[in-house]
């Protein structure tokens, strides 16, 4: 098991290097630099631009810049500095004096770590995940047990809505609805009370909830037809025991294995929802960086997202190996 996990983690490295390379090439293909592309604000004068370009090393050879950013290289004082592989994601071009890792991972002063942007996104993703599991799984189980009844059709219709309609469109509908009903404040002043998290967490979790419900239903239907269920019934087990011990336990294997990718999807996929609800998370910082053409911020956040997704993909195979002993992984 350990060698397998190590091997999978090692294969992440070339993938991440390529992701970093592609992002870097695309960022450099963009005409203009981060200083001269702010049409709304005052333009930075030519001399300052030149100094800034030199300060951030943007006048160097692009390949050298990339290796410096990703691996290591000399900085302007001639010292060798470790790059992204040491977790050093570089300085932000727009929020001067801050590095990307500070913007993403450092909480406001005097607050615990989960008040950082990453922490906020993580907490929102966990809440959304809870919504998805606590509603999606029972929904799928019930509609499989009551296949082809009104309940089944209703649950499957709702989950088809959730699977196909993008989350920001769901957010639009719900924001307008709740605004008309005057039920809750959409953009709260503080995110300290739990009530204000409900709507964004639900909107974010709706798609995952629907996928979970559909997957649970499909896998339950598969299990219901198995011989061991007939065996369990014929040896006289109570129906409740058959359902909980034999059906659900087996049916949830595929559902549990995709929890990791789901969580990663919720963290990385939340940027539009975060923007719509003015949520102080990583995703909104990313969207802001896009608007400001803060290249190092875009690059750093993309790398963080890519790491999360790669880890999640690996987690599927590992979790599968633990849950289902029939699958041998090495």
């Amino acid at each position, binding site marked *: 098991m350990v060698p397998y996990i190590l091997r999978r983690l090692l*294969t*992440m490295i070339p*993938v*991440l290097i*390529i*992701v970093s390379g*592609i*992002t870097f090439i*695309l*960022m450099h*293909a*963009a*005409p*203009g630099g981060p200083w001269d592309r702010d049409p709304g604000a005052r333009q930075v004068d030519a001399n300052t631009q030149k100094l800034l370009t030199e300060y951030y090393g943007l006048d160097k050879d692009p390949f050298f810049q990339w290796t410096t950013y990703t691996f290591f290289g000399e900085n302007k004082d001639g010292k060798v500095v470790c790059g992204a592989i040491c977790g050093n994601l570089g300085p932000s071009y727009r929020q001067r004096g801050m590095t990307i890792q500070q913007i993403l991972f450092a909480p406001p002063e005097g607050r615990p770590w989960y008040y950082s942007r990453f922490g906020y996104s993580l907490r929102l993703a966990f809440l959304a995940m809870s919504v998805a599991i606590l509603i999606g799984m029972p929904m799928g189980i019930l509609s499989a047990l009551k296949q082809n009844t009104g309940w089944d059709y209703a649950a499957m219709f709702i989950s*088809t*809505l959730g*699977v*196909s*309609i*993008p989350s*920001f*469109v769901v957010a*639009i*509908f719900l*924001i*307008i609805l709740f*605004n*008309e009903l005057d039920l809750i404040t959409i953009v709260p002043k503080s995110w300290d009370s739990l009530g204000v998290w409900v709507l964004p967490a639900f909107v974010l979790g709706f798609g995952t909830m629907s996928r979970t419900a*559909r*997957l649970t*239903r*499909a896998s339950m*239907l*598969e299990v219901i037809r198995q011989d061991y269920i007939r065996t369990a019934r014929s040896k006289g087990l109570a129906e409740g025991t058959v359902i909980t011990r034999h059906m659900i336990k087996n049916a949830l294997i595929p559902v549990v294995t995709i929890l990791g990718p789901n969580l990663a999807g919720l963290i*990385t*996929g939340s940027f*539009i929802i975060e923007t*719509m609800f003015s949520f102080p998370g990583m995703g909104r910082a990313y*969207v802001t960086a*896009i*608007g400001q*053409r803060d290249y190092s911020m*875009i690059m750093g956040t*993309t790398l963080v*997202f*890519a790491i999360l*997704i*790669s880890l999640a*993909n690996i987690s599927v195979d590992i979790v599968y190996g633990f849950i289902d002993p029939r699958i041998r992984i090495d």
Partner: protein
Amino acid sequence: MAETPSKIVTFELPEKRRSLWGDAWYRLVRNKASVAGMIIIIAFFLVAMFAGAIANQNPLEVHSGTDYLPPAWIEKGVNGKPSSPEFLLGTDTLGRDVLARVLYGARVSMVVGIVPTLIVLIVGTIVGLIAGFFGGIWDNLLMRFTDIVWSFPDLLFFIIIMIALRDTFIGNLLNGLFLLFAALAMVGWVGEARVVRGQVLSLKEKEFVEAARCIGAKNGRIMFKHIMPNALGPIIIMGAMTVPGMIITEATLGFLGLGMRPASDPNNLPFFVTSWGVLMNEGNAAIHAQPWLLLMPAICVSLVVLAFTFLGDGLRDALDPRMQGTS
């Protein structure tokens, strides 16, 4: 003797042969959800094609003084302006007719749904055929490439590509739509190729391929005449399932302000005027005061995406009855 012909007809009916495809079509049209999906899709296609004839207003004409009108069935909007029967769905910030803009927006969504999907299907099928049939290095290359593409969050990739190349020559073709098509196709073909490859791997061991080889058929003939028609079912299903993803991506990018560039000159109306994503982006600024600006494009996107999902589900059930009822 006069009554006999009707009897003959009843006897002939069961004799009529139905091909496998006819069978699948029969299963498809018996599925109510997918028929509803097809009707919605056809309706939106007609709207997209004849947007100019349906809309009674120019989608780009600025009516000064009549900005932010509410829809016709609301007497007075939040801003106190009375509605006008001329603007059925009201007007936007600049006093442009919302209905006309939504109707024209259908064009972009339909084309974005179809064109990149076709590219994806063609490229993916050919690459998948080659990788699956010849195996070896081709197969290895494809698999390694997929590993990279799949570990890149695709929406982030689209966002980065749109930012980077938006102001270049490619980014300006077709109001920015060309770049969008290219980006969507670039990521999309990989999944398609994997599906086709899987099909080919199992099909090439079948007896009919062996038989074809025995009578001296060349590789190309076996690939395109024997294997591909048998893999067509999954290819069609994949195609139908790809379309909603494309439409959603366009809407998302438009909503982020990274989609197509909306046209603005009312005297020179291009084919692609604006898209639903762009409309939602414009409407988002006034989400509390003027919600109908957002509601209409949001409803349209949801309807079209749902319709394609239902059609895709129906196609899967029809073409692959073994898969019925699963996920």
